[in-house]
């Protein structure tokens, strides 16, 4: 069963009342991913809280503070497997003050589930979720119109939400949007097809998650190999071995390819692509391999091996959509460490071009400071050139984080424009 099953990572964003926790609980419960002792613990807590029956939402509650406050304050990861795929859920809260958590969860996702309450339609929060999903370039967006049981499973209510969503999403960069009418509480169209909505011809949520085409989500064109570390065994059997260890960020590299090492610009050919199990003819994302070159050139961590006829941009000035993650606000012209693939340099935010008002999604140009959960377009200057692609073309070589050198905390995450 493990042969060809792919891994799909998806994020769920939602607020306390839109049924997100119930939906995740329902997915896990109906796909038989909840163990008996976990169910018993939930039953016990449900009873203690005076709920009728089993409150599936309790399954996704994590840490003590959250259990006491009844809210999700961080990104929690859940897992389930069906005969078709393995799934990783990044469960994030949806309030405006948790923008940073949504961004974190979205950064590795293939798909985003956006929950809309059928009674209330598209609200400010829906627009915010969709905006973040498009900013983080999540390839597939599944808009789940929930609580259909509370609007008599009405097709009109469903169509109304689609119209509202499409009205504003036409301005966003989203490739694949689907709409699914569900009731997480009753189980309609989550795992099993609903018998209450014959007018809906599409697939239930789980089937959609199992079949959505994700092989094309990774950039297959631009070969990028950031070097993490150099393997030099210096043992009897491998006296002269010098392998560059890393993970293919995108594209394909083959033995014999003409390659360039950046930033030095040295050129060579790929001599071999090695793994513990065997030597390979080619490597593609996201494989971790060790690459040997024909020539003895100087390569170290932070360098990038690329095909000589397809190079990234090399620049010290980059434009970035930045999300501020830290309680301490940014200061104009302050210096940070910038992490990009396996490379790190010193960087300065030179200019704040505009800030997004996360309530209205309008651009605000008269602001100098970034506070926690702010998203802004900025210009960054680095001490040495970075080898970059735009985030839209490459989620790995197009992303950066900023680290504050006096606290060592990760203070911002950015997508290169």
């Amino acid at each position: 069963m493990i042969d060809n099953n792919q891994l799909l990572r998806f994020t769920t964003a939602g607020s306390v009342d839109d049924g997100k926790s119930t939906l995740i609980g329902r997915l896990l419960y109906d796909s038989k991913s909840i163990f008996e002792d976990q169910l018993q613990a939930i039953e016990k807590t449900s009873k203690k809280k005076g709920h009728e029956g089993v409150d599936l939402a309790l399954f996704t509650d994590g840490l003590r503070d959250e259990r006491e406050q009844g809210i999700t304050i961080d990104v929690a990861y859940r897992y389930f497997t069906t005969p078709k795929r393995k799934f990783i859920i990044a469960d994030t809260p949806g309030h405006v003050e948790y923008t940073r958590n949504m961004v974190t969860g979205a950064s590795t996702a293939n798909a985003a589930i956006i929950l809309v309450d059928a009674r209330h339609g598209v609200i400010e929060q829906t627009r915010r979720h969709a905006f973040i999903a498009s900013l983080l370039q999540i390839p597939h967006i599944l808009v789940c119109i929930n609580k259909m049981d509370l609007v008599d499973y009405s097709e009109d209510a469903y169509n109304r939400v689609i119209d509202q969503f499409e009205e504003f999403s036409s301005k966003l960069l989203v490739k694949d949007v689907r709409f699914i009418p569900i009731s997480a509480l009753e189980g309609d169209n989550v795992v099993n097809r609903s018998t209450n909505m014959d007018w809906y011809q599409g697939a239930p949520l789980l089937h959609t998650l199992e079949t959505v085409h994700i092989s094309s989500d990774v950039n297959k064109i631009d070969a990028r190999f950031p070097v993490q570390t150099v393997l030099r065994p210096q043992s009897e059997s491998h006296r002269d071995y010098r392998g560059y260890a890393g993970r293919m960020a995108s594209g394909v590299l083959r033995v014999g390819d003409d390659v360039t090492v950046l930033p030095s610009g040295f050129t060579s050919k790929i001599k071999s692509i090695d793994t513990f199990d065997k030597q390979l003819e080619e490597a593609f994302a996201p494989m971790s391999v060790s690459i040997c070159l024909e020539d003895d050139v100087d390569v170290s961590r932070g360098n990038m091996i690329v095909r000589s006829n397809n190079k990234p941009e090399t620049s010290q000035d980059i434009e970035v959509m930045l999300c501020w993650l830290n309680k301490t606000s940014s200061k104009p012209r302050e210096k940070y460490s910038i992490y990009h693939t396996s490379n790190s340099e010193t960087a300065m935010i030179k200019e704040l071009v505009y800030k997004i008002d996360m309530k209205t999604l309008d651009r605000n140009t008269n602001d100098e400071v970034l506070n926690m959960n702010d998203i802004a377009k900025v210009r960054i200057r680095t001490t040495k050139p970075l080898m970059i692609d735009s985030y839209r073309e490459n989620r790995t070589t197009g992303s950066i984080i900023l680290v504050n050198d006096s606290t060592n905390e990760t203070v911002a995450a950015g997508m290169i424009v």
Partner: protein
Amino acid sequence: MSKYYLNYLDELESEAIFVLREVCAQFQNPVILFSGGKDSIVVTHLARKAFHPAKIPFSLMHVDTGHNFPETIKFRDDLISDLGLNLIVGSVQESIDNGRVAEEKGKSATRNALQTTTLLDAIENHKVDCAIGGGRRDEEKARAKERFFSHRDDFGQWDPKNQRPELWNLFNGKHFEGEHFRVFPISNWTEMDVWNYIEKENLRIPSLYFAHEREVVWRNDSWIPCSEFLTLEANEKTETKKIRFRTLGDITITGGIESDADTLKKIVEEVSTMRQTERGNRSDDKRSETAMEDRKRQGYF
């Protein structure tokens, strides 16, 4: 085009190798926390793959409660000599003898909580700046929010509300002197994934995981193995049962399940039909609803 994707197990392996290589690049003195259990065996195997043909650039660290399955210790020593690695042992018995910790009293006394002090002492004494663990997010609710790179302050403590955000595959391991990181390369694996991987790679694991006859006593809803460390209550009697262990820990608290699974294939089949979580047989997690979180805050594995 269709051939250019990995199946999920290969993708998880590749992710773990990436994380282990980041550890090697970002830290001075990392160790693998090795318990002899299946998760730490998988992590050690992944480290072998990550640095092949070079040797694993980490020592193994074992926190020894003194209440061991003899099989685990033999397995550990064989592996160390096969891989030619250095072993660091932190001894709970020594911590007790030195007065660093006091033995718990009462019927359900264990050395489980005492391990934290021994672990933190060993980390400090050996100037370890990164301890790689086999923790998985599916194990327990407090672990569901754990990062790949998890920061610990200079008291070795975990603050779940003040974790560094982790985006894409950009791991920030920057730390001050005296602080360390816990890194979990198999964060995204489930128990099933671990077993499927052990079967696929045909990894050697301690015999305790396979069904075998053993003298046991029924306590806390599972079969606790008889050993020199176990004191029987008046109403308890020992029996010989065919059992196996789903997790391995301190011999006094690790409960077995009745099973006939005596090959890897049978274990994989059995695990896939299990209706109880693997930690359901661990009495250390049953103490309270937030037992794991409370221990983790203090610096537990």
